[in-house]
């Protein structure tokens, strides 16, 4: 079944409302907001990497605020333990039984702030919940419910006191992007309204968790022509052949690509994906999934360079398959 034109139009309208709502807090970053919302509606997780003070946390909090659901913020520190994230089973002396005390991960939207400041052990505590939507403590699985989204922020790895996220962890993030500094107009507006200390508080919930789930379902019904699917497959294969690339796009990455492209197309009011969607989303979807070799750094080759070269190498389809 394919999404109808009316459903696509409703999707686009709702998506735009959410974007407008979040943009009250995050000035001049509409594209990043759209990416974050796309990630939410694709039931994926979002990784924001940038320098301190660029609005990463603000964006995450605004996104959490716009949804009528529970949300929690976990400040990742070097002494944070896995049980501080997932929860712990304690003995209830009154009842004489062991009871599970859920950790902050059991919310609709979880903000994992400065995730790379925690030790790899604690980072790994997120692996299961991000992939399967559940937490296993003392052999007992505990579902976190739907929708569930982790918005993580991290400082660049060159920053002091940071740990590199393992590849398996990175692959669980649907998209990664950076917020970047606001442009001149946004900076001026920010300064003019400096009295507003907490801009995220300006964002009121306008959508329910059920609607989010409904939109996710509609996005799944967006049509992807085999020619476009082939284009994604060719990009994946070519990514593994590119010089300086140690680890190319995985099958999970390809699936993520298609899923994100569907949501992006629906957000544009379309019932089908076009190659431009793939090109547009290539960088946020691929940049944390491609692992370069050591020589790349010496040669001045960055992931962004590789992605640009990849898109220049693989020709997008101009016609449908049949």
């Amino acid at each position, binding site marked *: 079944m*394919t999404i109808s034109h009316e459903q696509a139009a409703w999707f686009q309208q709702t998506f735009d409302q959410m974007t407008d709502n979040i943009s009250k807090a995050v000035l001049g970053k509409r594209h990043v907001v759209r990416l974050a919302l796309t990630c939410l509606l694709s039931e994926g997780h979002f990784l924001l990497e940038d320098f301190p003070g660029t609005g990463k946390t603000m964006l995450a909090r605004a996104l959490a605020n716009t949804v009528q659901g529970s949300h929690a913020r976990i400040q990742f520190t070097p002494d944070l333990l896995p049980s501080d994230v997932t929860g712990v089973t304690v003995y209830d002396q009154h009842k004489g039984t062991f009871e599970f005390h859920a950790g902050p991960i059991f919310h609709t939207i979880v903000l994992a702030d400065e995730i790379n400041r925690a030790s790899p052990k604690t980072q790994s505590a997120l692996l299961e919940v991000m992939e399967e939507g559940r937490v296993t403590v003392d052999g007992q699985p505990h579902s976190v419910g739907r929708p569930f989204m982790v918005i993580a922020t991290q400082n660049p790895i060159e920053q002091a006191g940071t740990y590199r996220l393992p590849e398996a962890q990175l692959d669980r993030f649907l998209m990664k992007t950076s917020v970047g500094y606001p442009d001149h107009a946004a900076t001026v507006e920010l300064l003019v309204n400096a009295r507003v200390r907490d801009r995220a508080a300006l964002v009121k919930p306008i959508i329910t968790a059920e609607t989010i789930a409904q939109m996710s379902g509609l996005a799944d019904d967006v*049509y992807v*022509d085999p*020619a*476009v699917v082939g284009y994604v497959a060719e990009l994946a294969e070519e990514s593994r052949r590119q010089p300086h690339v140690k680890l190319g796009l995985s099958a999970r990455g390809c699936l993520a690509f298609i899923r994100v492209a569907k949501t992006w197309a629906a957000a544009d009011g*379309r*019932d*089908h*994906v*076009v*190659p*431009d969607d793939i*090109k547009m989303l290539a960088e946020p979807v691929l940049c944390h999934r491609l692992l370069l070799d050591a020589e790349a750094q*010496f040669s001045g080759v960055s992931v962004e360079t590789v992605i640009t070269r990849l*898109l*220049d*190498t*693989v*020709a*997008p*389809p*101009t*016609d*449908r398959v049949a």
Partner: protein
Amino acid sequence: MKDVSLRDRIIDIVLLLAVCTAALLGLAPTFTGWSFAVVGGVGLLVGTAIGVLVTVLRWPAIAGVLIAVVAFLLLGGPLCLRSEGGDAMLPLPGTIGELVDQSLYGWKDLLTTLPPVDGSGPLLVLPWLLGLVAGLLGTLLLRFKYAGLPLLAPLLLLVMVILLGVRHPQSLWVQGAVLGALALAFLAIRAQRSSGPIRGGAGRSTRLVVGAALLGVAGALAVPVATLATGGDAADGDRVVLRTYVEPPFDVGQYPSPLASFRRYVKMPKPDAVNLYDKTLFTVDGLPEHTRIRFATLDHYDGVVWGASNDAIPGATNDTYQRVSSTIDNPVDGKEVDVEVEIGEGYSGVWLPLAGALQSMDFTDGDPDAKAEAFRYNLATSTAVVPSGIHPGDRYSFSAVLPKDGVTDADLPSGAIGDAAIAAAFLDTQAVQWSKGESEPMKRVFAVAEHLKREGKYSDGVLAAEKIYHAGHHVARLSDEFVNAPIMVGNDEQYAAVMALLANKIGVPARVVMGAVVPEGGEVKGSSVQAWVELQLADGTWRTLPTSEFMDTDRPAEQPPQTEQEMSGTVVPPPAPIPPPSTSGEQTDAELNSRKAKRNAGDGGPWSLPAWAKALLVYVGGPLLLVVLLLGAVVGAKLLRRRRRLSAAKVSARFVGAWRELVDHARDLGQPIPMGAAITRREQSTAIVSPAAPQLARIADGYVFGPAAPDPNAATSFWTAVDAERRAMSSVVPRGRRLLAAVNLRSFGRR
């Protein structure tokens, strides 16, 4: 493709020119002089310049081709047709016609002309065309990133040069080595430039040593490899050339055998108007006394006559009648002579009297140009034919080499027996009986000759008592009336014919030659005419077996034998009818004449206009017509392209085509539209100066990548929308810009 610096581009072009020049010089044995190299070199330079121009201006390759066509027609006259007079230097219709004519038919003329051809003649159009195409192609191929791709141009040029060349090229090793080395250098430089910078690994000195070693190996390999590539691999020393396979369209068999009319030259008892015995056939100056001068070499016996033919010698490739230029590549050892001949009242026909191996030819009187053009020469038989005819009063001069002659019974014969041995089947008995038990073929031939001389009698059959000795040398005359008769009686015609047949039967290649022995003073009369036999030795040379070796001059007794009552019993088939003259043999001449006639008519007929009108038509009309034709071709090509897109079988392809039509229109209007395989419609739409373009791109994408199969009616509607947008885009630009867009070639370029 990586950006290439100006210095690198110049190096590429210079090396490419050098490789092409080395390939082009392979035509040296094909043309006399070096005009071909100059013309071909200019062609290379002009082609390269056009290629560079097109590349710098980022024009499509088709533009380069069109410019090259114009350059070919404009410069072809002064470069290649100087020999044809003043008007040929100008790009007039006649000149253009001649250039096109030579481009289309010159190849055939070149291949059917015995090399080297005149280096100043109209066939220079061919090296001019080859150079132009190679230069343009090579430069255009430099656009591609593949290091060796531009070498395709000199490679194709080399193939053409070899195919159009001669079987025994000179300086094969030198040319091959130079060409190979230049090509390797070109490849090495381009490959090194396209490879990435070396980091780490071997040091500079190590790389230098390794590089030098590799270059040395490449150089050592270049000589044999390039020599093989230039055609030096054939086991017999010959290389494969087209002229081996292109049969000259000339059937010499259509001309009557001069041997059949031998009795015109014998002494008659009474004066006879047609008899030539006392008439001067021609006067020769420059030949030693008693030199044999040849009318025709007759190498094919069909049971009726000994005649001349093409391809009579097994295994030979030079035994055809080919056009020749004024000088002939005919290397033979011997005495060089320069001869002048004036045809007398007694000689006419197509066979041109010559002596020895011809080196050069010059007709001086009697429509020399026509004779020179029609003149054909057979290297293997040293026989010349002038199809337009030799007439009394004609004069010509030639230089020739008189090779070593004479044969003895100790010489070894060649083993290349032709069809004549089969035709001599009726002489099986004589070939054995008259050999006197000899086993060596040459000794058997001399034994047979001796038998013929000893047993045979001489009669021209013109005396009243000798009229029973008929003329002719068909099978019946040679069997029942000669070898099987009680007494063999005949003259040169019968003796030479049967001697040659017997020699072939024995296994010694033999042929009959009709000619004359130059008397003192050089005035050749009919009385000097003879028919003799030539035998081929193991070294391939043909040696004369004089008539005196196999024919005596004793006359027969007064009472002739009753041959009618003593038939041998041999079943003699009736003489085969002489085939009607073939018209295909004249085909080339006819074509040539027809083409010339057309050109002459074109030059003279329609131009009977006032001078100002003629000038206007020539200098304005011609170029204008050419330009209009070129522009029309561009518009036509665009219409064809549009039609193909509009009528694509796949409906979604019609949307794609409609979008491309819009993009092409924008490009032709001069808008900078991003092109390339990685560019999508939406990306292009942002660059098109049209408010509707993004929406059109979105619609096209919707139909192409949407869930439902596109509807043909929707495609038609989309084309309508695109056409409306194209008109809207055109309406906002000046009229001149619109006209320019209609003929702009930009949209044929990179997609």
